């Protein structure tokens, strides 16, 4: 099975998108960094394995493990029932708070105020799916291929609001003080989990054990706080 293969090879290949800050990105010396990157590094170190990042884009995260090009995915993967039909998820190692963020100067307070506003999202993310399923709310959704493009759209004024993680919403104003965004309407909290091919029970068990341990000892929380500025939710830490 896969676990044996990994241990024998002394190497684990992890599929991570390095273009979705602050989970995966490059630091100013162009080395990978971010919360998912550090989680992956910690996992490899704990298991005594060499780590290889399989560079991926949002679209190819899953096919990479399905076709055996990567062993597991650590790449802000939110757990949904639909996706669980295709791959297996471990238990959550973090959560992702999603909000609808708006310009600080805007008057948006609740869903009805969003009428006639355009909301930018990253295509295919759980934020996208959630907003898209709110058919009754009559929302105008503009989907971009990645977070960077979405942020650029928000900065340049192509969209009025964004549906994204709280971290990213706060990030928009850092680069462009004339358009500061803040969270206005909470959208949902998603569980983030490690993804792997179906039917690899031993690997699944070992991953779950590792997550449980590191949630308990606070290491995962430390990483999360370092990059997202907030703690993991209380119900997860207890």
């Amino acid at each position: 099975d896969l676990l044996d293969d990994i241990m024998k090879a002394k190497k684990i290949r992890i599929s991570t998108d390095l273009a979705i800050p602050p989970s995966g990105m490059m630091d100013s010396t162009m080395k990978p960094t971010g919360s998912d990157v550090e989680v992956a590094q910690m996992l490899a170190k704990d298991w005594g394995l060499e780590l290889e990042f399989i560079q991926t884009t949002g679209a190819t995260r899953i096919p990479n493990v399905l076709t055996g090009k990567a062993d597991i995915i650590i790449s802000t993967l939110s757990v949904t029932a639909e996706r669980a039909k295709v791959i297996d998820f471990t238990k959550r190692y973090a959560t992702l708070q999603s909000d609808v963020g708006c310009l600080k100067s805007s008057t948006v307070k609740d869903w009805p105020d969003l009428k006639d506003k355009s909301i930018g999202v990253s295509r295919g993310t759980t934020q996208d799916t959630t907003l898209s399923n709110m058919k009754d709310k009559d929302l105008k959704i503009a989907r971009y291929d990645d977070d960077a493009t979405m942020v650029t759209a928000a900065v340049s004024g192509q969209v009025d609001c964004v549906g994204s993680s709280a971290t990213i919403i706060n990030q928009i104003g850092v680069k462009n003080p004339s358009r500061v965004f803040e969270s206005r309407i909470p959208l949902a909290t998603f569980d983030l989990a490690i993804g792997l091919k179906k039917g690899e029970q031993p690997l699944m068990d070992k991953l779950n054990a590792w997550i449980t341990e590191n949630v308990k000892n606070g290491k995962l929380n430390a990483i999360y706080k370092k990059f997202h500025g907030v703690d993991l939710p209380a119900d997860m830490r207890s």
Partner: protein
Amino acid sequence: MGGHLNINHLMFLGQGALWTIGLSLIALIGGGIVGFVIALARISPLKSVRLASAIYVQLIQGTPLLVILFLGYFGLAAIGLKVSPLVAAGASLTLYVAAYLGEIWRGCIQSVPKPQWEAAEGLALSRTQRMVKVILPQAIRIATPPTVGFMVQIIKNTSLASVVGFVELMRSGQIVNNSLFEPFAIYAIIAVTYFAMCYPLSLFSQRLERRMGRGRSNLAPA
């Protein structure tokens, strides 16, 4: 995240540019070899060979490169072939380039005037001799400008190899942008870099065309 454009970013972009060049070379060499076969197949005396190669060309030319790359990379793995990204991207680009170069070259071979074919035939040369000694030397002259012109398109299109994990010029730009959020500066740098790689080739192909005294369009994917 954040910070300013520094030498590391530029070196990262430079590395991406090198990959772009490398992928282009692979695509051109692989596509050139297969494309030559396609060109010959398209004018084969056997109807079945002509038909098969025509279908191949139609299929490839009717599908975006992005989709071809995706299916090539994961499709090969899905049927049990373990291939590195380099091999997979190389194979996909080869298939893609071959369809276009094959068509360009077929046109060039066929544009050698018919009387030249007949004159060679009248001298009792065999089919291979006719091709090698009479037709191809003339076709190569005609084919050089559009081929050089097409290389420009290959360079630009390798940007799509990012879907299979290649950090070439375009992708490296996106990655840098994601940590800096300075789209204009970065996309401008990318645009200029591509221009610097492509324009000399464009110019060269135009000069060749002019020297041959014919204005051929170098049709190519955007």
